[in-house]
C-alpha cells in the first residue's frame, strides 16, 4: 500500500514521470478522438501512410532551421504528412491505381526518403542532430514540458474543430454524396478531416514514433466502436481509451528501466482492443459465442422434448397421458441422429421436465409434456390443441421405422 502511495506521489512530484505521463495521455486522447473519424471513413491506413510520410518533414525542418524546437519539427511533420495525404488522393483520383496501392507507394517513398535524409544528417557529424532518430520509434523520456504544451495546443485546436463542425464531420463520414447535394463543401471538409488526422499523427511522433503511430490512430477507435452504437459516445470512449493507454503505458514503463514508453503505450492500447473484441456486450466474440451456445441448447432441448412427446403419442397415448409413458433411450437416439440425447435428457431431468424410468427408459413429466406442447405450437405456429402430429412408428424391438 505504501509503495503504491509513494508511486502516486511520484507522478505528481517527479518531473520526468509527470511530463511523460501527461504527454502520453494527451497523445492518446487526441489520437483516439481524431482517429475515430479515420476509422469510420475507412481511412485507417491513411494514418499509417501519413505517420511514415512525416519523417522526411521532420528532418527537412531540422536541416532548414537547424532547430529542434518541438513546434518547428511538428510543422515539418505536418507539412510532409499532409503532402503525403494529398499525393495519395491525387494518385487515387488521377490514375487507375487503387487507394491501398497508392497508400503503400506513398508510405514507402516518403519513409525511404526520410531515412536517407536522416542518415545523411547524422553523417554530417553535427552534434546538434543527435536525437532526431528518436522520431523513428519515439522517446517519451526526452519529453519536456514545452513539448507537452505544444501537444496540448495543437490537440486542443483539433478538438475545437471537431466540436464546432461535429454535424458536418458526421454527415461527411456517413454519406459524403448527400452532404455535397446539401451544399456542404465536401472537398474542403475532406481536407479538414485529413489535416486533423495528420495533426494527431504529428502529436504522437516524439512519444511513439512514426512506425507505431498508426496504432494510436486506429486502436482506440476500433476498441470504442465495440462498446457503443452512437457516434458521440464512440468518439468520447476512443479519447478515454487513448488517454487510459497513454497513462498506463507511461506508468508501466516507468516501473522498469528497460521498457520504452511508446511501444508500451501501444501494447496497452492493443490490450484494450483485444479485450473489447472479446468482451464487448453486443459485438464481442465471447458474447456472440455464448448466445449461439445458448440458442443451440434451447433448440436441442425443445427437439428432445418434442420427440419424447411424439413417441408417446404414436404409441397410442392420448396427449394428456404422454407423461405416463416411458421410452427406450435407443428409440430416442435412433429418432434423433446427431443430437447428444443423453446430455440433454440430464438437463431436462434437472429441470423436472423428464424422468428416468427402469431399464434406460425415459418419460416426460406432466410439466415436460406441457412444455413440449407449447414449444411444438410455437415452432409450427399452431394452437396447442390442433398440433400436427408426426407419428413415429417403432418396431417391437424399439427401433424407428423410417
Amino acid at each position, binding site marked *: 500500500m505504501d509503495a503504491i502511495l509513494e508511486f502516486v506521489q511520484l507522478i505528481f512530484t517527479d518531473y520526468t514521470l509527470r511530463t511523460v505521463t501527461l504527454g502520453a495521455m494527451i497523445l492518446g486522447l487526441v489520437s483516439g478522438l481524431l482517429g475515430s473519424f479515420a476509422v469510420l471513413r475507412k481511412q485507417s491506413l491513411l494514418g499509417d501512410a501519413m505517420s511514415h510520410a512525416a519523417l522526411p518533414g521532420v528532418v527537412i525542418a531540422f536541416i532548414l532551421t537547424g532547430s529542434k524546437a518541438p513546434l518547428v519539427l511538428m510543422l515539418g511533420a505536418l507539412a510532409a504528412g499532409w503532402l503525403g495525404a494529398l499525393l495519395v488522393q491525387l494518385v487515387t483520383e488521377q490514375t487507375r491505381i487503387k487507394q491501398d496501392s497508392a497508400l503503400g507507394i506513398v508510405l514507402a517513398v516518403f519513409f525511404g526518403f526520410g531515412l536517407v535524409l536522416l542518415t545523411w544528417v547524422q553523417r554530417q557529424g553535427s552534434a546538434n542532430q543527435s536525437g532526431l532518430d528518436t522520431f523513428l520509434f519515439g522517446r517519451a523520456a526526452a519529453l519536456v514540458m514545452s513539448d507537452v504544451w505544444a501537444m496540448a495546443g495543437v490537440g486542443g485546436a483539433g478538438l475545437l474543430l471537431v466540436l464546432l463542425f461535429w454535424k458536418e464531420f458526421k454527415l461527411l463520414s456517413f454519406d459524403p*454524396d*448527400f452532404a455535397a*447535394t446539401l451544399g456542404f463543401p465536401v472537398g474542403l471538409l475532406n481536407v479538414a478531416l485529413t489535416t486533423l488526422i495528420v495533426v494527431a499523427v504529428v502529436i504522437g511522433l516524439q512519444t511513439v514514433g512514426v512506425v507505431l503511430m498508426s496504432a494510436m490512430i486506429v486502436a482506440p477507435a476500433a476498441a470504442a466502436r465495440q462498446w*457503443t452504437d452512437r457516434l458521440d459516445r464512440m468518439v468520447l470512449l476512443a479519447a478515454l481509451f487513448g488517454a487510459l493507454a497513454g497513462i498506463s503505458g507511461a506508468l508501466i514503463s516507468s516501473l522498469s528501466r528497460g521498457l520504452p514508453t511508446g511501444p508500451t503505450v501501444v501494447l496497452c492500447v492493443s490490450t484494450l482492443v483485444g479485450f473489447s473484441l472479446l468482451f464487448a456486450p453486443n459485438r464481442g466474440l465471447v458474447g456472440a459465442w455464448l448466445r449461439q451456445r445458448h440458442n443451440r441448447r434451447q433448440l436441442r432441448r425443445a427437439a428432445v422434448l418434442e420427440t419424447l412427446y411424439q413417441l408417446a403419442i404414436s404409441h397410442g397415448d392420448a396427449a394428456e397421458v404422454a407423461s405416463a409413458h416411458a421410452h427406450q433411450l435407443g428409440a430416442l437416439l435412433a429418432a434423433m441422429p446427431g443430437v447428444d440425447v443423453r446430455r440433454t435428457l440430464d438437463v431436462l431431468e434437472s429441470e423436472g421436465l423428464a424422468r428416468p424410468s427402469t431399464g434406460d427408459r425415459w418419460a416426460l413429466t406432466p410439466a415436460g409434456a406441457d412444455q413440449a406442447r407449447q414449444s411444438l405450437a410455437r415452432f409450427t405456429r399452431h394452437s396447442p390443441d390442433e398440433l400436427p402430429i408426426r407419428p413415429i412408428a417403432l418396431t417391437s424391438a424399439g427401433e424407428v421405422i423410417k
Partner: protein
Amino acid sequence: MPGQRNGSPPIHIEDLTVAYREEPVLWDVDLDVPEGTLMAIVGPNGAGKSTLIKTILGLIQPAAGQVRIYDRSYTEQRSLVAYVPQRGSVDWDFPTNALDVVMMGRYGHLGWLKRPGPTERKLALDALTKVGMQEYAGRQISQLSGGQQQRVFLARALVQDAQIYLMDEPFQGVDATTEKAIITVLRELRAAGRTVVVVHHDLETVPEYFDHVLLLNVRAIATGPVAEIFTPANLRRTYGGHMDMLLARDGELTPGGGSNGRHS
C-alpha cells in the same frame, strides 16, 4: 439562399454529355420534367441512369450541356431538391440510429455550426411515421432490414421538404411492405404537387407506378407520358436484342398495365 419556383419546368436538361475518361456515359441528353409528375428513368445496366441523377445534383460535372432547376443553376436552387441515394452507397454499420440519419435531411436547412434540436427531432419522427418506421426511430441502422434502411433514406429526403425528389433505385431489393410504403409516399408527393424522378429497374411496374417515363440508354431514347412512350417498339430501341428476347418469351408488352417484361 432559398430556391425559387417560377413558370419554368422543375428540371430542364439540354445537350447533356457526361464522360468518364473517353467513354461517354450520357450523350447529348435533352429532358424536360413537367411539374407534379412521377417520372421513371428506365434503361439497361450502364445506361447512365444514376449518372444522370448525380449530374442533375451537381455531384458529377458534365463534359457539355447544362442542367436547370426552375431555370436556375442547381447551386442556387438546391434547397428545392431532395435526394435518395442508392442504399448500397453508405456503410450501414455506421454508429448511429434511424432517427439520427433522418435528421441529416435537415442539415442543409440548419446551415453551419447549428445543431439539430427538438424541431428537427419532431420533423424526423413525422417523416419516419409517414414511411411506417416510427417504432424503429432508436434502432441502430445496421439492425434494420434492407427495406427498412431504404425507408429511412426516403424519410431523410422527406424532411428536406423539397419541391423535386430525385431517387436512385428506391425499389431495389426491397420487400413488398416497403415497396407499398414507398409508392404510397411517392403518390402523396405527386398529389401535393411535388415532382418525383425515380431510377427504376422493374419494367413490369412502370405503367402502374408512374405517369411519365424517360427511356435511357446513353442517349435519351424517348420521353413523355407512360401511355404514349412505354411501348414495345421504344423498349426494343432502349434495350436492344435483350428486350427482343424478353418480348419473345413473355408475349407482347402492353403499356398501361398488364405488362410482363421484367428486366433483371
